[in-house]
């Protein structure tokens, strides 16, 4: 009983435990719901899943179901990011506990009842509970915003800090997290307001089905803006998280944080103002340039650090180019996030820009379905790239070492990029091949995609099984992680109490004087 209690304490109170639970939830959802599409349909697996779980899949509701699925998984990913943020950005213990508890109840309620509503019948009690879950996630966001308030005196940075700060000492990284949270809350409201019109002038749609409708309603535009900005903000949050993980600092940090803050504000204004202005895309382009430049500065810094650290470890005084490359590639888990951000430019940003520039000349000449495939591939890749970076960070947090670290890291990078590259070629195939002669390229790209994603899912499965096995052992890694976090939390609580004591003594002194 004591063992169970300890494990539950680990899983539902520690950062690593909470993230592990959320990742397990996403893994299970992916494993089950992944059987409903793609090659699983061709192999007949979907029919087995549907029969086995008694799913209720009305054809007219497919788009609605997909929207429920996206939202429930997005809530879970948001929760994982929030756990990381509350674990790494200084805040009071009670704030961390309150935020983590609220978002955990929120995402679990949203995913459980959202999926039941979407796939197992339409009792509106389930839909109501799905909304309750989402509201709790939103409320956790408000709490997070309050906890991250950058002007709190206790979190001001000293003048000589290597981290970006203002003259008054405001921590700009903290400010960037705060701005991201504020933008996410405003953007979530856009979706919520439109969602509340559902059935009253607003009908379910997938954005890629709307692209050729010349006159879109304000509600449709609000949803299009909402989905784009939410995914962007998830990416911004993750960039800030990996920046802190890699101890991003120095001059690049100082420039990058200003860029990230201004970029997040501009891109959010741009994405949401598409409801009113047809030229909002220009605002988005400006914001994108700012945010992407900040990410580029992070990549340059982190790769430079990795090279320097490894070279120092090896004691090489004057490394040649080959030694530097080897040093950079030494640790795939730390090299990976930066690489995935660079790779994203070829598979997501590059495709997006090319699409925008050549829209009239190329893409609008193709049938709508071809354009839809390009768009769908483009954002699926971005979402999956984000997932791989989260996995890299969590694998590092889990203390993966030695060969297991290398194998996990490299397989994750190579196989996911193989799949993303293949999907990109598949989605842009009309540039190289006519419809009549496309069979070969379709076969190749589909096969490589299936292999890449299949292997990534297998190593994810192995990783989760390892963590499950660990959880079953008496003094496994989980116990060490719990002890370490309890120690850290006790230390920060003592520091907090000391601060409080000093403040109280000051108050007393002031009164007695």
């Amino acid at each position, binding site marked *: 009983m004591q063992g169970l209690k300890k494990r539950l304490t680990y899983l539902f109170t520690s950062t690593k435990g909470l993230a592990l639970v959320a990742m397990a939830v996403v893994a299970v959802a992916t494993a089950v719901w992944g059987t409903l599409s793609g090659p699983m349909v061709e192999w007949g697996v979907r029919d087995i899943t549907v029969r086995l779980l008694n799913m209720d899949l009305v054809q007219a509701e497919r788009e609605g179901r997909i929207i429920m699925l996206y939202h429930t998984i997005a809530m879970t990913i948001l929760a994982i990011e929030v756990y990381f943020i509350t674990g790494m950005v200084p805040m009071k213990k009670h704030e961390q506990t309150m935020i983590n508890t609220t978002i955990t109840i929120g995402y679990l309620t949203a995913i459980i009842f959202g999926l039941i509503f979407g796939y197992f019948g339409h009792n509106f009690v389930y839909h109501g509970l799905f909304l309750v879950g989402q509201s709790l996630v939103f409320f956790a966001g408000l709490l997070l915003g309050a906890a991250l308030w950058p002007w709190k005196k206790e979190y001001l940075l000293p003048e000589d800090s290597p981290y970006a700060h203002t003259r008054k000492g405001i921590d700009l990284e903290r400010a960037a997290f705060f701005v991201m949270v504020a933008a996410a809350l405003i953007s979530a409201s856009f979706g919520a307001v439109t969602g509340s019109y559902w059935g009253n002038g607003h009908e379910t749609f997938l954005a890629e089905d709307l692209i050729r409708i*010349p006159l879109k309603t304000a509600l449709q535009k609000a949803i299009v803006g909402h989905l784009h900005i939410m995914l962007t903000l998830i990416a911004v949050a993750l960039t800030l998280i990996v920046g802190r993980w890699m101890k991003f600092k120095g001059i690049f940090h100082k420039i990058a944080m200003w860029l990230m803050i201004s970029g997040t504000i501009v891109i959010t204004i741009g994405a949401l103002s598409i409801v009113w202005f047809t030229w909002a895309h220009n605002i988005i382009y400006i914001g994108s340039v700012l945010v992407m430049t900040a990410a580029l500065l992070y990549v340059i810094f982190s790769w430079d650090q990795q090279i320097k650290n490894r070279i120092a470890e090896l004691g090489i005084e004057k490394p040649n180019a080959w030694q530097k490359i080897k040093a950079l590639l030494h640790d795939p888990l730390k090299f990976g996030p930066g690489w995935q951000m660079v790779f994203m430019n070829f598979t997501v940003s590059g495709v997006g820009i090319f699409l925008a520039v050549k829209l009239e000349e190329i893409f609008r*000449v193709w*049938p709508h379905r071809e354009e839809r495939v390009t768009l769908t591939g483009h954002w699926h890749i971005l979402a999956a790239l984000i997932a791989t970076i989260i996995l890299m960070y969590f694998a590092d947090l889990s203390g993966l070492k030695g060969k297991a670290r290398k194998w996990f890291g490299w397989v994750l990078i190579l196989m996911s990029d193989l799949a993303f590259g293949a999907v990109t070629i598949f989605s842009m195939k009309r540039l190289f091949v006519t419809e009549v002669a496309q*069979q070969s390229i379709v076969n190749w790209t589909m096969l490589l995609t299936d292999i890449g994603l299949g292997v990534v899912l297998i190593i994810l499965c192995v990783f989760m099984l390892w963590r499950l096995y660990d959880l079953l052992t008496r003094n496994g890694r989980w116990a060490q992680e719990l002890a370490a976090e309890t120690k850290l939390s006790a230390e920060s609580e003592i520091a907090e109490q000391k601060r409080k004591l000093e403040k109280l003594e000051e108050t007393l002194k002031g009164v007695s004087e």
Partner: protein
Amino acid sequence: MKRLIHLMILLTVLALLTTACTPTSSVGAIVPPSIDTGIDPDSWAVIPAGEFPYGQHDHMTMVDYDYEIMVTDVTNQQYADFLNEALAAGEIGVGEVEVEFGESVAVLEGVYGFYAGEPFQGYKHEFEIKAGDKLYIPLDEEGLRLTFNGQSFTAIPEYANHPMTMVSWFGANAYAEFYGWRLPSDTEWEKAARGTKLVDGYGLPFPWGTEIHGNNANSYSSFDLFEKMFGKLGNTTPVGFYNGDTYEDYETLDSASPYGLYDMAGNVWQWVGDDFSNQHYRHMRGGSFYTYEMDLRVWKQNSAGPVYYGPAVGFRCARNP
């Protein structure tokens, strides 16, 4: 352990090479067996006036007149006959014609005819359709199932009863107008495909009912006997193929629409007639052998400029009784 890993990598590479190096047929390269489905492509069905559930969200929509629509897609044979008649009547030309693909212009060898153009309003993304000669079908392109000997057109015999493809909207429209018919409107097409019936409060998602199986329609990976020949992407099937008959051990389900129309889901996308004034894209309905079953749902729309042609796009006609 290392050996095992190396062996697995080797096997994966071999599997890849084996799959990728297998000769892949394109839809233009293989001649399929001739199959008579017994469905007459010259037959028409009457669609009576009345309300029907339109679109994914089943908006009850009134079509207040009777109309007729072809039971099958226009076949290669029918289109070859049209070209020969139109050529004799001097209504079409054969040779080089300028084709505007978005902002670029290509000169193609093909069959063309005059089109009066459409008003241009200068909207964002609006195609400008000027008056002039328009390409109906390209010649000398893989995927076309007609041949031209300099004087007349002939359908490749094995493909004679397959749907006419590689035809632009202009080519489809010209066919209909030549015989005094028209392309069905978006609404007419959907009504003919799904009928008026509601099941559990929903309009039919497929012409034959609420569920889809591989042998209901020709879609991507539907495992019909043409996919055995052409690979997973498959090829067109003869019009009316999914009528409950068995062909070379491949058993089909009778998948006619409530009005007796065949191939209203799968096989080839079908051009419809509407011109949307501020864009001029033309809609296509029904899904094709290239698409997953989700695109076979009766409300799904595809679209392209009227100059577009492809191996998975055909049409059928409508007329007033």
